[in-house]
């Protein structure tokens, strides 16, 4: 049967299991929207293409499926770039379909023409410009394959308008070509046996997990492994939820705003086993002193993550799950009881550090942002999908909410994209209409994609936005206080912050406000109960800072636990 390009695109998307698309129409993709109109696809119309990209990302992070985003050429395409780069840094599987001017016009500076494959080359896993309709079905197949396989990532397909209008006989796509097939890495036996021997000998081992555990769906194997050999676990920001936050072996996040005990443990450990971690500078602090007493075993699917920032002793290039399954199997034949008992001194030592530097804050006259998160955690019993914006709100969410399950914490870790959380929460709510989805935001970052309130209201998506409103771009202000002698250049936005309650109402959402500590619980209760989208404005202590803090470039043991106190 002869089909046009738009019909082939939709059929190819359906073949990949896609039923939901986040997008915004425009001249170059009118034909696709015309076909969408006649189809059964759920198209979520956002209010800005950046929102579409983040929503597709949130959909992908929460569901594990590939997020799909459809936008027009030129500005429609460039507006997605921040969202694409966000997904790329955090290895999120996404397919972005952009319209393009007709092929004869490419290169002529036509209206709404931009070289989007050129622009996104460094921030996509791969991208395609489809020049002929006969390439279309296969290109979509390859794009999804690339997005999902190996270390996942975003893939962009640029579709010229004439290709969408051309007709051809539809042929089912063939399997992806060899060229796009990443090697499947299975772990070598040698390093695994060596790792088991090290585990037996180690007195002070630590497990460090990252986003790879979540992408690799390795949580069950990880829990089994950690308990089998009784090793305390810490995580990067991206790994939160990969290991239960309520497990006795859990030490909390490490790094710049990690817990005192996790940072002390990693600095003192004699064996560090990392799973799906790429050693970001926010995690390691000063490289020369990072886990400097330890033999380091690194399990990662991406060979370029090995020895990039931290030199490791035993690299294991493998997907996390396969490596953990094999480690667990090897450990079955060994004296586990003896291994476990040998850890008692180490676990006691970590307990002492936990007593010395617990995660805490002081209550005051004003609402403490940490208290809002703790109350939210208590009231939801942790049963929520939590998205965050970027900055203090993100760090407090990471520190004071305990994530027990993978795919429940959606945050822009690598790129640090303000404005990510709200559209990501919308994407997650589309994937899970019946779950509680919360965006923890600041008064600065929520304004970066506030227009998506219209999307939430339009589709009756009951996303709950918790704004920790301190009147500042708080994390930047914190750095100005600590490193720029309190010169708060361009970070005080309190005077210009809109009335969030009225703003919510203007969009047709519910707006709530709490200004005193006593109002926190009642406001959250009312907001969480409401069946539609809610903006909750918590006016918090203006100059509260995120602690512990390791100054950029300092050693992880060199932490400030609160204002003026170093340890």
């Amino acid at each position: 049967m002869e089909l046009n390009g738009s019909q082939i695109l939709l059929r190819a998307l359906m073949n990949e299991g896609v039923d939901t698309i986040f997008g915004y129409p425009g001249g170059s993709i009118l034909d696709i929207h015309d076909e969408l109109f006649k189809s059964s696809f759920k198209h979520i119309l956002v209010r800005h293409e950046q929102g579409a990209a983040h929503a597709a990302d949130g959909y992908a992070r929460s569901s594990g499926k590939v997020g799909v985003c459809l936008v027009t050429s030129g500005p429609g395409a460039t507006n997605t770039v921040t969202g694409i780069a966000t997904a790329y840094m955090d290895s999120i599987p996404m397919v972005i379909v952009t319209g393009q001017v007709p092929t004869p016009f490419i290169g002529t500076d036509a209206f709404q023409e931009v070289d989007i494959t050129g622009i996104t080359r460094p921030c996509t896993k791969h991208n395609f410009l489809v020049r002929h309709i006969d390439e279309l079905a296969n290109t979509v197949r390859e794009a999804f394959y690339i997005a999902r396989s190996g270390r996942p990532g975003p893939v962009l397909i640029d579709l010229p308008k004439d290709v969408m209008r051309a007709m051809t006989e539809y042929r089912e796509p063939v399997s992806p070509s060899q060229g796009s097939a990443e090697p499947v890495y299975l772990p070598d036996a040698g390093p695994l046996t060596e790792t088991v021997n090290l585990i037996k000998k180690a007195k002070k081992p630590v497990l460090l997990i990252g986003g790879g555990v979540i992408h690799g769906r390795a949580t069950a194997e990880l829990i089994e492994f950690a308990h089998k050999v009784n090793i305390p676990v810490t995580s990067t920001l991206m790994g939160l939820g990969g290991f239960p936050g309520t497990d006795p072996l859990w030490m909390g996040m490490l790094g710049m705003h990690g817990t005192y005990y996790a940072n002390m443990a990693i600095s003192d450990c004699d064996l560090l086993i990392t799973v799906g971690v790429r050693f970001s500078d926010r995690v390691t602090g000063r490289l020369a002193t990072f886990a400097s007493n330890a033999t380091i075993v690194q399990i990662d699917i991406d060979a370029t993550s090995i020895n990039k920032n931290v030199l490791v002793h035993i690299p294991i290039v493998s997907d996390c799950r396969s490596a953990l399954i094999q480690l667990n199997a090897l450990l079955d034949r060994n004296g586990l009881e003896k291994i476990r008992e040998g850890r008692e001194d180490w676990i006691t030592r970590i307990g002492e550090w936990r007593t010395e530097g617990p995660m805490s804050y002081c209550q005051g006259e004003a609402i403490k942002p940490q208290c809002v998160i703790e109350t939210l955690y208590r009231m939801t019993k942790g049963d929520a999908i939590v998205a965050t914006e970027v900055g203090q709100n993100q760090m407090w969410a990471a520190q004071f909410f305990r994530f027990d399950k993978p795919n429940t914490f959606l945050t822009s870790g690598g790129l640090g994209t303000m404005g990510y959380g709200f559209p990501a929460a919308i994407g997650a709510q589309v994937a899970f209409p019946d779950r509680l989805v919360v965006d923890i935001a600041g008064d600065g970052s929520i304004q970066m994609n506030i227009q998506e309130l219209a999307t939430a209201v339009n589709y009756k998506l009951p996303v709950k936005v918790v704004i920790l409103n301190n009147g500042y771009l708080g994390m930047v202000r914190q750095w100005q206080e600590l490193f720029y002698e309190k010169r708060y250049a361009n970070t005080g936005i309190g005077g210009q912050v809109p009335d969030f309650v009225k703003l919510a109402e203007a969009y047709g959402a519910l707006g709530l406000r709490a200004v005193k500590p006593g109002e926190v619980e009642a406001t959250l209760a009312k907001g969480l109960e409401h069946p539609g989208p809610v903006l909750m404005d918590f006016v918090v202590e203006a100059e509260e800072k995120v602690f512990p803090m390791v100054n950029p470039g300092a050693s992880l043991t060199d932490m400030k636990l609160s204002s003026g106190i170093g340890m």
Partner: protein
Amino acid sequence: MDVQEHTISLLVHNKPDVLARIAGTFSGRGYNIENISANVTMNPKITKITIVTVGTQATMVQVENQLKKLVDVIQATHMKSRESVRREMVLVTVGGDREKVMKAVGELGCRVLKEKPDHFVLEVTGSKEEIDQALTYLETLDMKDMSRSGMVVL
């Protein structure tokens, strides 16, 4: 850490943007391309690209792995100098005295591609060191222009 010259041989799909992806990987990650040469292989759908770059051994492992990650890169091989044959070519325009030029041609073993009353175009093929030596020699004549290729390796 020793900074050295390294040669990487790539087999890639012969697509319009493949060179941009490779060049972008180098520039985006702060690696440097000293010279480059590219042409199709026996299979016209596949191109062989030879890149000479400078860096430490550890950087080379990163470069190689980063290149292998590109979807259109089929193979990336770090060529060891002892096990491979490598050649560059340079075309040189020299003017001046015919006798001196012909002496150079004899000594350097180069070919005369073009002879005009006031200048000659010569071709020198050889290892990087041989090309460097030839250019040093030819500079003592009236060298007007040159065009030097990237390295090819097998």
